């Protein structure tokens, strides 16, 4: 069976080198994760949760077809610009997903205004209450702080494949890219911590991309359309991931 990828993310692209081998790491409703020998992860799936720089975009039909053929542990190899599995070949000669790094287009005032309509009160009774997140954000602006322990608290903490703490960090990093505030030193600390086994492989992928200014399309949509609808679309990602990310963005924009 020959299948066609709809688009490939710019981080996934250099991993899809001739001969590179991936194994199927996990299979979800909306797609699957494949990992190469160096632990680099690619998500192949639909855009229901947005598109990802480390993603291969598939239409729903193709995703379903692949899911019927594949199981965890299967091998996929890149040959002649195809991802080859023993039951199908996926053609990769498709367009590259846009990076959306035009953070300057973000309308921060509008975003702040629309945040008024969303309640983040539920976080007050969790490990990520307002005071704790605010404290992190304030200290991220201070070059004299050492944030290693605090970041360790956040990383990998909470429910889900992308634990809540990680999603909040991704949100805070997005807040930083549209409105710089984090001291370089702390970005380096976070980068260094990502080399330790502190969180899931998927979450690690999101954070390392976010450190480079690469976010999923449901997040970058906010810089093109700061409407409440855009925010709601982000909230609908995952069971709580989208909301957790939005909470991070909200806290970083309303810190003052």
């Amino acid at each position, binding site marked *: 069976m020959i299948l066609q990828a709809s688009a490939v993310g710019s981080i996934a692209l250099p991993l899809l080198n001739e001969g590179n081998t991936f194994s199927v790491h996990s299979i979800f409703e909306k797609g699957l994760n494949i990992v190469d020998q160096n632990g680099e992860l690619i998500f192949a799936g639909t855009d229901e949760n947005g598109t990802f720089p480390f993603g291969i975009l598939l239409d729903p039909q193709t995703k379903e077809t692949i899911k019927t053929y594949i199981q965890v542990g299967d091998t996929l190899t890149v040959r002649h610009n195809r991802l080859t599995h023993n039951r199908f070949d996926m053609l990769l000669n498709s367009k590259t997903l846009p990076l959306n790094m035009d953070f300057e287009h973000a309308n921060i005032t509008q975003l702040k205004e629309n945040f008024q309509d969303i309640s983040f009160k539920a976080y007050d009774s969790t490990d990520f209450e307002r005071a704790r997140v605010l404290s992190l954000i304030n200290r991220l602006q201070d070059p004299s702080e050492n944030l290693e322990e605090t970041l360790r608290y956040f990383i990998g903490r909470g429910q889900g*494949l992308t634990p809540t703490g990680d999603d909040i960090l991704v949100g805070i990093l997005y807040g930083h890219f549209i409105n710089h505030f984090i001291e370089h030193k702390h970005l380096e600390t976070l980068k260094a911590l990502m080399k330790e086994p502190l969180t899931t492989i998927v979450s690690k992928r999101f954070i390392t991309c976010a450190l480079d200014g690469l976010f999923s399309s449901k997040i970058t949509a906010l810089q093109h359309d700061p409407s409440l609808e855009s925010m709601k679309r982000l909230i609908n990602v995952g069971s709580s*991931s989208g909301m957790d990310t939005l909470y991070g963005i909200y806290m970083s924009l309303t810190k003052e």
Partner: protein
Amino acid sequence: MLYTIIKENTYKDSIVLMLLSNKLSAIDGVSKVSIMMGTPANKDIFKSSGLGTDELEKAKPNDIVIVVDTDQEQKVDEVKEEVEIALKGESDSQNTSKGQEAHNWKRAMELANNPNLALISIPGQYAAMEAENALNEGLHVFMFSDNVSKEDEVKLKQKAHEKGLLVMGPDCGTALIHGVPLAFTNNVNEGDIGIVGASGTGIQEVTTIIDRYGKGVTNALGTGGRDLSTEVGAITMLDSIKALNQDPKVKVITVISKPPAEEVQRKVLNLLRNIDKPVVTLFLGDKPSYQEENIYHAYTLEEAAVVAVQLSNGDKPNFEPTTADVNVVLKESQVGIKGYYSGGTLASEAAMLVRDAFKDTMTEEQSDRYVLKTNTHEIIDLGDDVYTKGKPHPMIDPEKRIEMLEKSVNDPETAVIMIDNVIGNGGHEDMASELAPAIKRILDSARQDGRQLAVLATVVGTAQDIQGYEKQMEILKESGAIICKTNDQMVRTAIQLICGKVEQPIVDVQKFDYTKENLAVDDKVMSFINMKPSVINIGLKSFTEAVQNSGSECVQFNWRPIAGGDEKLMKVLQFLNYYEGGTI
């Protein structure tokens, strides 16, 4: 009491974990439960919420960790069961088809994992009907069955072509589909030479020679012997050539057939002239009278294989025929060549070369028992219907061959005896050991009669074949046979022994005009040759095992004739089924 369950490297949607968490909390007797990924931060949460255990420390960030607090130990099993059900999910439902058998199409389609090929080996009179069912189910068809009418073959192949499917056969004995050998096929290395052939042993000889030269064949598509007839019009061959042309993994295309009907040959050559990849053709029986820039016309099977290897290596075609060293002293009266073959195409090749060498001096007798018969020479295909009625094929059963060997020694004019040993899937597990005593006996018997005899033998196989290529040669050699590397070498050696010679054709390169062809081929055919087939096997059970052994999935369909085998009634039911779109 705390119980820890760690599911290593397990990933599920958050929603699955939340539902599981709710379910476990609802179990009577479970006072507390928590499910999280095993990150260091989460382990702290487990500990701080009173669910810290020693085992927890073993968990890694990509593991799902479940800690249950319950005073009733028996509840842990219930928890484990729920966890298994929830985490199993949809992705683990594969690999269930292995070992299951079906008795009707509906069940076979349910059991099979995305099937794309029906392998049919039931009696000929029913085979066409089941092939049609297979096509209706969207499957490609490999028909091992013979005795299918030509009209049915035309109908099936036209239907397949319209649906973007391939019908290989009827009477197709050999095919390699993405490295998976079907029916009588050798275990050949995968590689960049693609083959389409209307002849089973022809494909076997060519693919095994290619393998022994260190190259490989991923797809060898059999068409069945009648595909290049006027009526069928090479439907399968044309579609197969197009598929090999579209497959970027194929560097050289090799086409093998008996000389086709003239207009069909024109059609095939016209298509080949549209193709940029180097092509080797072998219309066995025709001595090439010209070459073409991009199409090499070979004369023998070995030549086709060697040139395909050379072209795949980027070398210029250059075939030099060889003969084996034979140390036998023949009397002047010993002038006859006898060939007792199990491979039909190998017998045809032998006849062709003997005819070519002695065309000026020999008179042929016409008989359907012989591929070639003169007053001195005889070449027999023991796999022909005349010899196999009610008996197994000579590749499986050595009896007829032994009988012919014993008989031949009585003829004092016999100089050389040629035999083939076709090994691989479907063949006898040790044919060499069956033939060796007979060879020894006839050599001894001739010697006692005051003459020598040359018994030449060739093994069609590869080192990967279960019978062992080297081992089979060794056994035959020990019996006194002279081993030839190929059938070409064996026949040329035989001819040389009685002072004849076959000249290789020396020909010019010619250019031909051709009409443009649409080279597009259906995606279903492309995907068929690009992955291991998932097979529904209708008939011979041993084919199922062979397919499964090569790592492909296969569901055994234990076919029984419906309507008590009444063909007329079966056809009516078939029509109604098709008409209603249902199945029985």
